[in-house]
């Protein structure tokens, strides 16, 4: 898992390696400095030898300068490496997501992919930076400090050997105690977020049912459990600092007592035994060792927190698109004819019920096809197979006489334009949005397509016309306007097949018919497939397919179906109750 992640380091490998190297140098210097300080006190100040003080002082300053330089370099490298690593990781994830098929996206859900690309990456970046800087530093400091203190006085240093395991055990106990609580807290946090999100989305429902107080209670419950769990975890973590102090002070007391005795015994002569300066150094080392242990425990927490994030990131990186180009993909789509040859389909391999069952259909190039059927009759699933948004589970779908799986995916999709049921506009001007269909489209082409989609009129009513800025999600245009813009965007592709998946539901009937009329007159060679709820939207089609429960119930013209098909007739009658239409 870690290896998969580290593959994203790439050009920042140099910095990733340099940072700990600098850190190691820095920690060596930081250990040498207290020793020099001891020399300074013992042999300089205590002996009243100013030349020695100057000499050691100078060496000390040189060491400090080096330590400063290595410290700065380490900080720099760590910053570069971690920001770069995060950048590459984000890049790799985003690019892999771009390769995802619809079923890959369905598997993760958009919300989850977004969290993985944002919060999780930030977590990992922070952990990575900390690792690069401190994961090497802390053990190094402990090792060097131990070596140096043993050199000064092996007997006194045994104190450390006693204290370190005690502190280590204490830290470990706290951490292992706190970890499950933290895991729980983060899960509760997700819950809190989802309550707020649902509340924001459904605020009209909340207010119309007077459920403000109910929602507040719901929120407070979760808020309270976060408070309780977080407090519990942090209260335990609160033992860290006092425990560290306890060990520190304890070691210092022991050092003072035994150290004093040792100094008296040696007559404060470093050559014989312990000196006052060396005692000061030992105390400095105590601090360094215990602080480093503390650091290690913090790193440990960081790793625990980021572990979940790492797993989630790797999941996305490991996900392989289940739609792949053939070895020698065909790039040329001959015409807009479509054939379904005994096609069955299920969204997941494990599903026990097929969404589409043994579909056989033949559609000529240039035909207008209407598809009607009840909620859940798999109309959308049927058309999504044509542009290979999903692969058929069995059987084959052919476009222009060739199995869709033999095409280059991009070439196929460029010729099969789909206006999805959940149509989305992106933040940017209307022009920019339309150019999704064709990046090189001229202004005239944009206007032409908008005219066909009956969008030109309302666009011209906006003060900024085609330069009108569309808010994220297209919230500043009405549903019907959004649908027409989406149709114009699809038209700009000049596809051989155009699929409208219930794309005019918010458009009034009059405009709806104008759109169809424009299609008939202006793009006669394009195969047009229209899924609709309104019979009126499809009744002039060359063929109407009636879907029912994943099967084709009937295919025929409006007149034929009215006579022969019960479902169709029922739908038609439900929409034309009152019989006034017959008079017209």
């Amino acid at each position: 898992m870690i290896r998969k992640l580290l593959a994203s380091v790439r050009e920042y490998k140099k910095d990733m390696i340099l940072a700990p190297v600098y850190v190691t140098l820095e920690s060596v210097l930081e250990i040498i400095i207290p020793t020099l300080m001891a020399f300074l006190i013992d042999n300089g100040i205590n002996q009243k030898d100013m030349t020695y003080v100057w000499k050691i002082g100078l060496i000390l300053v040189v060491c400090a300068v080096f330590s400063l330089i290595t410290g700065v370099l380490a900080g720099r490298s760590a910053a570069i490496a971690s920001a770069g690593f995060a950048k590459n990781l984000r890049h790799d994830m985003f690019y892999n997501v771009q390769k995802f098929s619809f079923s890959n996206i369905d598997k993760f859900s958009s919300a989850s992919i977004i969290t993985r690309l944002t919060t999780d990456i930030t977590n990992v970046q922070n952990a990575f930076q900390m690792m690069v800087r401190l994961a090497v530093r802390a053990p190094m400091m402990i090792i060097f400090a131990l070596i140096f203190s043993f050199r000064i006085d092996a007997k006194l240093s045994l104190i450390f050997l006693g204290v370190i395991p005690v502190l280590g055990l204490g830290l470990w106990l706290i951490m292992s105690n706190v970890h499950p609580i933290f895991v729980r807290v983060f899960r509760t946090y997700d819950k809190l977020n989802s309550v707020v999100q649902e509340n924001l989305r459904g605020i009209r429902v909340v207010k119309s049912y007077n459920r403000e107080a109910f929602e507040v209670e719901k929120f407070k419950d979760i808020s309270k459990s976060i408070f309780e769990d977080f407090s519990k975890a942090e209260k335990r973590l609160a033992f860290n600092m006092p425990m560290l102090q306890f060990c520190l002070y304890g070691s210092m007391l022991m050092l003072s007592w035994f150290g004093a005795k040792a100094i008296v015994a040696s007559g404060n002569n470093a050559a014989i035994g312990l000196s006052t300066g060396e005692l000061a150094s030992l105390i400095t080392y105590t601090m360094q060792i215990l602080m480093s242990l503390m650091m290690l425990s913090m790193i440990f927490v960081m790793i625990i927190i980021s572990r979940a994030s790492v797993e989630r990131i790797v999941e996305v990186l490991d996900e392989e698109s289940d739609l792949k180009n053939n070895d020698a993909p065909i790039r040329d789509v001959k015409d807009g004819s479509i054939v379904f040859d005994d096609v069955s389909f299920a969204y997941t391999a494990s599903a026990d019920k097929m969404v589409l069952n043994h579909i056989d259909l033949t559609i000529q190039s240039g035909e207008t096809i209407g598809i009607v059927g009840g909620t859940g009759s798999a109309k959308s699933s049927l058309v999504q197979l044509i542009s290979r948004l999903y692969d058929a589970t069995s059987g084959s779908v052919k476009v222009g006489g060739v199995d869709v799986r033999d095409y280059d995916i991009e070439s196929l999709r460029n010729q099969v334009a789909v206006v999805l049921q959940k149509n989305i506009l992106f933040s940017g001007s209307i022009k920019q949005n339309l150019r999704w269909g064709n990046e090189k489209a001229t202004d005239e082409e944009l206007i032409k397509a908008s005219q066909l989609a009956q969008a030109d009129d309302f666009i011209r009513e906006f003060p900024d016309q085609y330069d009108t800025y569309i808010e994220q999600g297209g919230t500043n245009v009405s549903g019907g306007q959004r649908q027409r813009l989406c149709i114009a965007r699809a038209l700009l592709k000049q596809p051989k097949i155009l699929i409208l998946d219930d794309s005019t539901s918010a458009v009034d009937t009059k405009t709806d018919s104008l759109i169809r009329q424009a299609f008939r007159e202006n793009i006669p060679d394009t195969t047009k497939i229209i899924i609709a709820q309104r019979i009126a939207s499809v009744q002039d089609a060359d063929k109407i397919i009636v879907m029912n429960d994943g099967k084709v119930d009937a295919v025929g013209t409006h007149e034929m179906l009215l006579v022969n098909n019960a479902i169709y007739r029922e739908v038609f009658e439900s929409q034309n109750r009152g019989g006034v239409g017959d008079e017209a």
Partner: protein
Amino acid sequence: MKHNTDNHKAAPKRPKHRFKPGTIKRLYSYMAEYKYRLIVVFLCILISASASAASSLFLRTLIDDYITPLLGQANPVYASLARAVMSIGAVYLIGVSATLFYNRTMVIIGQGTLKKIRDRMFEHMQALPIRHFDTHTHGDLMSHYTNDTDTLRQAISQSLPQMLSSMFTVIAAFVSMLYLSVGLALFVALFAVVLLKVIRVLVGRSGSYFVKQQASLGDLNGYIEEMINGQKVVKVFCYEDSAAKAFDVKNEALCDSATEANKYGNITMPIVGNLGYMLYVIIAIIGGAAGIAGVPNLSLTGVNTLTIGTIVSFLTLSRAFINPIGQISMQFNMVVMALAGASRIFELMDEPVEQDNGHVTLVNVREESGVIHECEEKTDIWAWKHPHSDGTVLYTPLKGEIRFFDVDFGYEANKIVLHNISLYAKPGQKVAFVGATGAGKTTITNLINRFYDIADGKIQYDGVNINKIKKADLRRSLGIVLQDVNLFTGTVLDNIRYGKLDATDEACIEAAKLANADGFIRMLPQGYHTVLKGDGSGLSQGQRQLISIARAAVADPPVMILDEATSSIDTRTEAIVQAGMDALMKGRTVFVIAHRLSTVQNADVIMVLEHGRIVERGNHDQLIAEKGRYYQLYTGVFELE
């Protein structure tokens, strides 16, 4: 929502790192209930810092007063040393206890304060008018609960005590230094001033890059959100490469600012620490020279000569003085960011809440010999209760009559979208609104339940001006089913019960049957107890609409608003639902908005709206006979032949 074209989002956002003056004071007001604990924490931090200062001072005492005199003695007596070690041990113990105490207390204060802020914020948000939600993106509102509270949490529970403790340590160390030698202490102070200048530059640099980093992070995350949410459209248009290219540009910008921000953040500590070492050397040289020369030393205890122990202690103190300065500077950015977050939260809390001056309430009544009496128990008979200023109370039975008198309305003051709307709906009538998108159909329903208040004219409910009715009671008397269905995480049953919290399971199931939702609900894995997640994402749009109809049915209000309630249900299913809908609508005043004219044909009166005006009204047959706008709309269906 359609009326989101507001000026709000266009307004330049305040830079992320700025916070309003008064934020700290206001933040404190949330901690006020912990006032005494805060004082104790303050004292404990003081004690803890003193203990650590004492530990540096002890080294001098140890060397000067105990070790040096014992040196050269043939039979050193350690009893006095033992006493000294014991007494400093006691000091340490007090210090450790103080540390433990304030750390634990701070957890309660920090988490308690956060909980309070979170709860108040949500409570306040619930009270905000719909306009606020329509004019702010959900992402913006969400970030108060995520980013802003998160930085605040870190600042309160970590940065604040650390900064305080560091500050005390610095002060304690400085006082101790003065105690040892005034001259040397002043020199250290001078050095500290220089150091602070250096830190200021570093923190300033890092701060401005932090702001940049936050901005580019927001930019990139926004882009990611938009693209991933529209990923299916991206794929349909083969837009992957372009999306990735734009992504790379933003990603690169973030990487640059993040590198710079962290760089300056990372190098602060090594610079401060190592400058501290240099200070150490300088003091050693000056102090050493002074000590050797026997220069008189001014200390707080009087004039004496510099002893070796003094210098050694002083050196240790100088480390205790410099290091916390570095730590404070490290926390500084964190605290500023948290305060900026806090001030954004307070901004939300300052938003004016929904005004409600209503005094007419809805009460349960019992009718006894033609006279209405208010009663406590549920009678399912309701009446409006108007208390008059003279103390008398008038009860009007709840019937469900709605009247509009010359109503004008605009979402923005100078842009009127509804003109002169007058209409009445008698109890039990079905009123339909038809018209093109943007004609103002939804707006009318927004006014009935006072999501928005009218600019001119008046609206009456059972003869009472709706401005006089308490909002909660007004809304309780209205049921609403919207085109955009919103379900909540919970079981199907919970979601239906949302309409009436005290409804029994049977009543909920009955309502589901009425809406024709019972069939598919029973097909779900756990039936009515199936847990819906993510806004009921496992269900089809039509199924979700059926649940929301059931939710309204269980509420059982005398007036219902159906805003495109059946738009996602195919007409065949709608025909089946229709029976349920008819049952649901029976005996109620209903406002129906629909695109599909078939849905509104049987309405008692149909209003045709155009550009915010009612251009035609009448029942289906009348309107058809009129051969006006409705006729055109209706026959538009057949125009193709």
